[in-house]
């Protein structure tokens, strides 16, 4: 007061404008203060200010949220232009932590990474999870396939459970939500990826996503956050407010095109047939070498057989696919006044997939608001509604329904495009050239899988700020969705006496199934927070809370397993009885928790948490469990005042946490079940009631009334350093997690009469490092700036112990993707947990090999000997993951691109197996398909030693399709890749060009995702990110999955 009085004597006025370095736009709302005083002002909507200052020399201090503060000496100038740069390093940024508590990042003793809206919407992917790929160290994100509406899986630091859910907890505006992905009924034959629910959220509605990586970060969320948490904060009205406007409207519109990213490489030397001889009904390319002659092909119909040149069609498969396209349109309005803010948005996405006829539509609607009710009460509410509809791709190995399965087997000389009219007399079921496969266009157009999801997320919060140190806050929220599905499989029948009837082609009675899943989760949180300044330098914050949640899922499935009238899809068209089933799952939990945070002089921080949960899924005697955590952060650069010209910031962190996890519902008591009597083949099963008699069978899991929660102990240390005005930054974390007393069904040998018992056992560890290096190599005065960041993640998972007497369990439990059937030529592989191996080891049938790795062959036939025991071929876990993100900006133009790198890990590829079987794989042309001695093969001598083999194999077809193709060890591929994950070029139209328009900002971008991929040299088959089994634990299997896509497009964003 006193100072301002003295200044007022002799004044001068300085006017000026503040411009952002990044885009050259003016910045409203920047605070301008005379250093050493309280005198100041704020820039207006045009970024200009006017301030009276004393005649004497002054220093002006400019500061704004998200920008680097700046001191400026105006000298004697009366007009100034200030260029502010954004605070890229964000070392003092505020992040959202558990229970939506905002904390300064510097105070956290554990690893968190935030991703902003801008980064999430750059690539224009419909999924926020896909949009985070390559941007967050320590986290592995995979997107199942290139089919529309597919699911995404996120695993942080390798997970914590053998067989339980290993995905993190998702929390949207403080309310937990579910990323469940309910697979279609039959993974192997009619696999459909029907999406996962977090992918419903429109990236445009997100303000930021924060990943809390360790259990320490999420101790307050209780058991479900033991795999870390992904906190999603949606946009609110405050954006407009901080921009100095009462209201802001943004409209953005984009269009992207999609084409297959990677198609298999095919051979173009041999055509349809067997044993190098033509066979006009074959689905394989084992025929004669191409000659270009005009030859007959296909079946004779009405006495006429067609002809075509006997030559390869190199782009046959490529030409089958459509150019996919996605339109997105988003409109949002936000605003607010003194006491309240609001945000509304409407978004619409329409995607047509590369697989002809597949589509996905999503409409999102959000409305939220906050109000200061009186001096002490405040409240907020939010409703987010998403409606999505997909007409999805059917994948898997069943040729009757999976187009891809037919495509990769098509002989290299038969045009896929020419088969398109499947009602044509040469292409219809009766006369299609091959009785062994189905016309892919028939499979595509006559079968479908449609799902319709209504998803509602809502929450209401009421708070009471009693005084300046006590705050009471209650929030109740729900995650509710209704998922309706319809599966249609056409009748396949042949006219008696027709070509394909004669040849015994497979038939199908048709199928129609409706599924309805309703999931409702309610979460209630009461939190009381007290903050107290204990001494000048010591601050205390105490939080106590109470949480109740309930998850309630119901489902009904009704199936007509055979149809009467072709093409009519309704349950009343069932030939024979329809089958139906329903289920109900209820899971409840409540807990109390507390958190104490101490900070000393804003450079030393200590946090302690504790929580006790009570769960409905555990026995009453074991249903209460407590777990604590402690974390500390020390900003030594501030404590010892080390900052200088070269060294800018330094922090070390350490934390320890223990987290408990309850069981799934209904695992304590063995029950009776509907019998499952089948040989694994389609429609080859016996369903009760049989001949009017009901039947049940004793369940296969031994009751366990003593089950306890499982616990994970996590330790981590971290280091955060910045140099040279924060142009170089390093973040490094090391963690060591150990999970014990795993709840899983220990499998028993069938001879015990049971499949297993749900127990607590096993030790599972994950150790790893996460590193992030950020550089600003160029930051020129001309406005050119280049930022680059490298992220590196190495996780070493280890199954230390399973169960006494048991060193292996299968991860395929409950899914059995590999049937144990005779003759099923693709058996012999499974994904297991093996003691002493990383999580997810591939146990496969293999050729017998000598100690030097040479193939052991039968001395009389020259063919490989199949090893009598399956081998552990390797793990699905990568050696490391890495990402490189670049952003280059010059005035209004910015260019960003991200590379995503995965090194190591194996996976099983059915596409490879099928291509070898069908002779479409280039490797099958080895030695011109003449008999050869298998390279590096040996024979075993009577004394056990090995000698080089000299016996050639009988023929190439038998070797490739009879030995290599059905032996999974030979069809594994290295899952390494380098992907150009994202490219975006943005132009922000300078304000001076639009200042007379109604717009306050206009930005135009060109974007691309997954534009380029480089795979391991032996993988010319598929994008290794593919997975057939959705987002569950059983990864590393591609079982006829659609090719992934590259997308590119443009969008415009208008702000009013």
């Amino acid at each position, binding site marked *: 007061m006193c100072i301002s009085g003295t200044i007022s004597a002799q004044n001068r006025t300085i006017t000026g404008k503040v411009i952002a370095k990044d885009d050259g736009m003016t910045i409203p709302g920047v605070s301008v203060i005379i250093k050493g005083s309280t005198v100041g002002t704020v820039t207006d909507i045009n970024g200009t200010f006017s301030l009276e200052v004393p005649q004497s020399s002054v220093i002006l201090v400019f500061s704004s949220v998200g920008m680097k503060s700046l001191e400026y000496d105006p000298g004697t100038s009366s007009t100034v232009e200030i260029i502010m740069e954004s605070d890229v390093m964000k070392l003092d940024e505020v992040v959202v932590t558990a229970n939506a508590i905002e904390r300064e990042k510097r105070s956290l003793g554990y690893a968190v990474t935030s991703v902003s809206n801008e980064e999430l919407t750059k690539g224009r992917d419909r999924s926020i999870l896909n949009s985070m790929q390559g941007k967050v160290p320590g986290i592995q994100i995979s997107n199942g396939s290139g089919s529309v509406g597919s699911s995404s899986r996120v695993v942080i630091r390798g997970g914590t459970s053998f067989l339980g859910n290993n995905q993190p907890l998702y929390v949207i505006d403080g309310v937990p939500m579910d990323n469940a992905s309910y697979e279609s009924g039959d993974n192997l034959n009619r696999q459909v990826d029907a999406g996962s629910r977090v992918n419903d959220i429109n990236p445009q509605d997100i303000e930021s996503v924060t990943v809390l990586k360790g259990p320490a970060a999420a101790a307050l969320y209780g058991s479900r956050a033991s795999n870390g948490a992904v906190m999603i904060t949606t946009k609110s009205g405050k954006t407009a407010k901080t921009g100095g406007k009462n209201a802001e409207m943004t409209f953005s519109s984009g269009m992207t095109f999609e084409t297959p990213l990677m198609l298999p490489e095919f051979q173009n030397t041999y055509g349809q*047939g067997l*044993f190098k*001889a033509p*066979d006009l009904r074959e689905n394989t390319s084992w025929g004669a070498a191409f000659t270009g002659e005009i030859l007959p092909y296909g079946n004779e119909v009405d006495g006429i057989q067609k002809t075509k040149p006997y030559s390869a069609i190199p782009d046959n498969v490529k030409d089958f696919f459509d150019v996919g396209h996605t339109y997105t349109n988003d409109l949002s309005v936000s605003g607010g006044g003194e006491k309240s803010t609001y945000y509304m948005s409407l978004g619409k996405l329409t995607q047509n997939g590369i697989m002809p006829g597949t589509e996905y539509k999503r409409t999102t609607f959000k409305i939220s608001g906050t109000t200061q009710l009186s001096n002490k009460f405040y409240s907020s509410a939010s409703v987010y509604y998403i409606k999505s509809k997909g007409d999805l791709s059917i994948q898997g190995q069943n040729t009757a329904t999976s187009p891809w399965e037919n495509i990769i087997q098509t002989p290299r000389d038969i045009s896929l495009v020419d088969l398109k009219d499947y009602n044509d007399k040469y292409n219809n079921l009766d006369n299609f050239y091959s*009785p*062994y496969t189905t016309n892919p266009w028939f499979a595509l157009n006559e079968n479908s899988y449609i799902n319709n999801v209504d998803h509602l997320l809502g929450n209401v919060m*009421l708070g009471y700020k009693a005084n300046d140190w006590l705050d009471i806050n*209650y929030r109740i929220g729900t995650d509710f969705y209704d998922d309706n599905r319809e599966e249609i499989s056409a009748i396949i029948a042949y006219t008696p006496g027709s070509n394909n009837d004669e*040849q*015994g082609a497979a038939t199908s*009675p048709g199928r129609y199934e409706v599924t309805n899943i309703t999931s409702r989760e309610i979460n*209630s949180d009461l939190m009381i927070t007290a903050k107290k300044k204990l001494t000048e330098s010591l601050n205390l914050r105490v939080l106590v809370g109470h949480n109740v949640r309930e998850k309630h899922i119901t489902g009904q499935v009704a199936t007509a*397993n055979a149809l009467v009238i072709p093409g009519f899809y309704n349950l009343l068209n069932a*030939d024979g009885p329809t*089958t139906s089933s*329903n289920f109900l799952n209820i*899971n409840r939990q*409540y807990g109390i928790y507390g958190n104490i945070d101490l900070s000393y002089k804003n450079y030393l921080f200590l946090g302690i948490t504790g929580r006790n949960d009570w*769960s*409905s*899924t555990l026995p*009453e005697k074991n*249903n209460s469990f407590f777990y604590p955590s402690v974390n500390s952060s020390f900003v030594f650069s501030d404590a010892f005042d080390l900052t200088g010209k070269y060294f800018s910031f330094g922090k070390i962190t350490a934390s320890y946490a223990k987290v408990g996890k309850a069981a799934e519902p*209904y695992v*304590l*008591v063995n*029950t*009776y079940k509907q019998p499952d*009597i089948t*040989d*694994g*083949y389609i429609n080859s*099963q*016996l369903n*009760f009631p049989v*001949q*009017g008699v*009901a*039947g*049940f*069978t*004793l*369940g296969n899991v031994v009751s366990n009334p003593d089950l306890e929660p499982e616990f994970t102990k996590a330790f981590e240390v971290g280091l955060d350093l910045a140099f040279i005005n924060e142009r170089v930054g390093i973040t490094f974390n090391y963690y060591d997690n150990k999970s014990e007393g795993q709840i899983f069904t220990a499998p028993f*040998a069938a*001879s*015990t*009469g*049971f499949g297993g018992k749900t127990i607590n056992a096993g030790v599972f560890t994950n150790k790893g490092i996460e590193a992030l290096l950020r550089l600003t190599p160029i930051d020129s005065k001309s406005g050119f700036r280049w930022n680059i960041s490298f992220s590196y993640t190495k996780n070493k998972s280890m199954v230390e112990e399973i169960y006494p*007497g*048991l060193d*292996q369990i299968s991860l395929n439990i409950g899914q059995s993707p590999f049937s144990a059937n*005779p*003759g099923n030529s693709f058996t*012999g592989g499974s994904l297991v947990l093996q003691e002493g191996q990383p999580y997810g080891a591939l146990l496969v049938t293999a050729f017998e090999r000598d100690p030097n790795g040479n193939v052991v062959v039968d001395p009389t036939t020259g063919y490989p000997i199949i090893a*009598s025991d*399956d081998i552990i071929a390797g793990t699905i876990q990568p050696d490391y993951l890495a990402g490189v993100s670049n952003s280059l900006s010059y005035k209004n133009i910015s260019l960003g691109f991200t590379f995503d790198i995965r090194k190591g890990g194996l996976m099983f590829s059915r596409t490879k197996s099928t291509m070898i079987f069908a002779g479409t794989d280039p490797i099958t042309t080895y030695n011109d398909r003449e008999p050869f001695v298998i390279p590096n093969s040996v024979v075993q001598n009577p004394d056990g030693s090995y000698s080089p083999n000299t016996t050639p194999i*009988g*023929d190439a*077809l038998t070797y490739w399709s*009879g030995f290599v193709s059905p032996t999974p060890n030979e069809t594994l591929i290295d899952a390494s890749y380098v992907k150009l994950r994202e490219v975006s070029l943005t132009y922000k139209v300078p304000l001076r060009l639009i200042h007379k328009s109604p717009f306050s900002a206009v930005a135009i971008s060109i974007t691309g995702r997954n534009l380029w991929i480089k795979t391991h040299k032996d993988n010319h088959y598929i994008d290794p990110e593919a997975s057939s089994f959705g987002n569950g634990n059983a990864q590393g299997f591609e079982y006829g999955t659609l090719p992934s896509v590259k997308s590119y497009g443009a969008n415009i964003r208008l702000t009013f």
Partner: protein
Amino acid sequence: MKRFKIKFILILSITTFFSACEKDFLDVNKNPNQPEQVEAKQLLPTAIAHTAYVMGDEYQIIGGFWSQYWTQGPTGSQYNIYDQYLISNTTFDRAWSDLYADPLMDLKDIIRKTESGNSKYAGIACILQAYIFQVLTDLHGDIPFSEALKAEEGIITPKFDSQSDIYDGLIPLIDKGINYLNTYLGTDIYPQEDDFIYHGDVDLWLKFANTLKLKIYMRQSEVRPGVAQAGITSISSNGIGFLEDGEDAQMFFIDQLFGQNPLYTQIAALGSFNILASNSALNYLINNNDPRIDSYYRRATSGDSAGLHNGINQGQGKEPNFGGPDVVSGWFSKPSFVVVGPESPVVFMSAAESYFLQAEAVARGWMTGDAKALYESGITSSFVHLEKDPAEAVNYYSQSAIDFPTSGTLEDQIKSIITQKWISMNGTESVEAWSEWRRTGFPDFLIVSMASQIGNFFPGILLYPNSEQTLNPNTPPQHNVKDKVWWDVN
């Protein structure tokens, strides 16, 4: 202001309400989707149907290939490994796991539920357990028996009993079943339509039990003739008798999706070009003018043999260029819809088998009776089972090649009995026919499959399943498919 306070208090009280009712709130873990208790009459049909499914499907096929009724067709590849003798340790994992964890365990559950008051169910369950255990040990050799089905008692790595111990244990198990069936508690509940085999007819179950014992003893004829003889002598005079015409132990199916014969549904799923007639059986039928040929096989529908029977030498169908580039499965005979139709029964034990067993017992002098008459009854019973005129059977067995060699050697007589038994089991009891071939070496004209990948050997045993090897450290070292089971001494 006041309004807000009320709301706040309300919310607080809701929260405390949850805590106050904590016990009820968490008491939601009773499974609403599956019952915790059911009755024996809901378990018996499952156990029978599931056993029938394995016997009539996976085992019927391997038995059919290795008894040389069937062979792999040239245009398919589904069962190549059977003709190649290249079965792996996963090939019969499902059958093994199904039989132990489902029917055998369900039968045990029936026994413990019903032994003290509902003993008819307990009796049937014991007898069916013995039936299944014999099938398993005949296929796999030593298997878990005395310690099997005891996970709830804490035995999770059951030991593998020797085959001889298992055989010795099967008889008391059947006797236990017979005892239950013969016990009247006054409160007995008789199975009805839930017993798919005999509809609760206790006398027929007793005959089944006795015939099963006959089969078990007879299997030991070569390895322990003394035991076999003593056993057979005792059961032939216990007054129970053996299965007779019309008393086949079998389960029928209906022609409705998910109610059909399991082999029929597998063929429907995989196409009818995989399982074709083997010349080993087809030529025997042709050479002996057997009128049952059209009950066992459908004729070729196209090509030079259209309307005739045409088979493939065992394992020859997958030889390169077999039949030329135009070959189709329609050129060949296929399993008929009499034995593999949608409604065809799965046969557990036929009356024909009962007669042939008795004929052999008489021939060996272990039982009194007329071997020739029993032999002819066996043939006639097979004709009846296939709904053929019994008079045709008389014509058939009157041919000199089929006529029972009453004055021949024991070897001659056994050869006739087992060869006729083999042809009568075509497509219906294939596994049993393969076991009897292994025991006796008859029929003596089977050939090593031309697709054999194990050299000039026949297969003798199934491998231990991968799941058992992995989970039970007591699993013995893996067999070679050429190995022989205990009673296979020739």
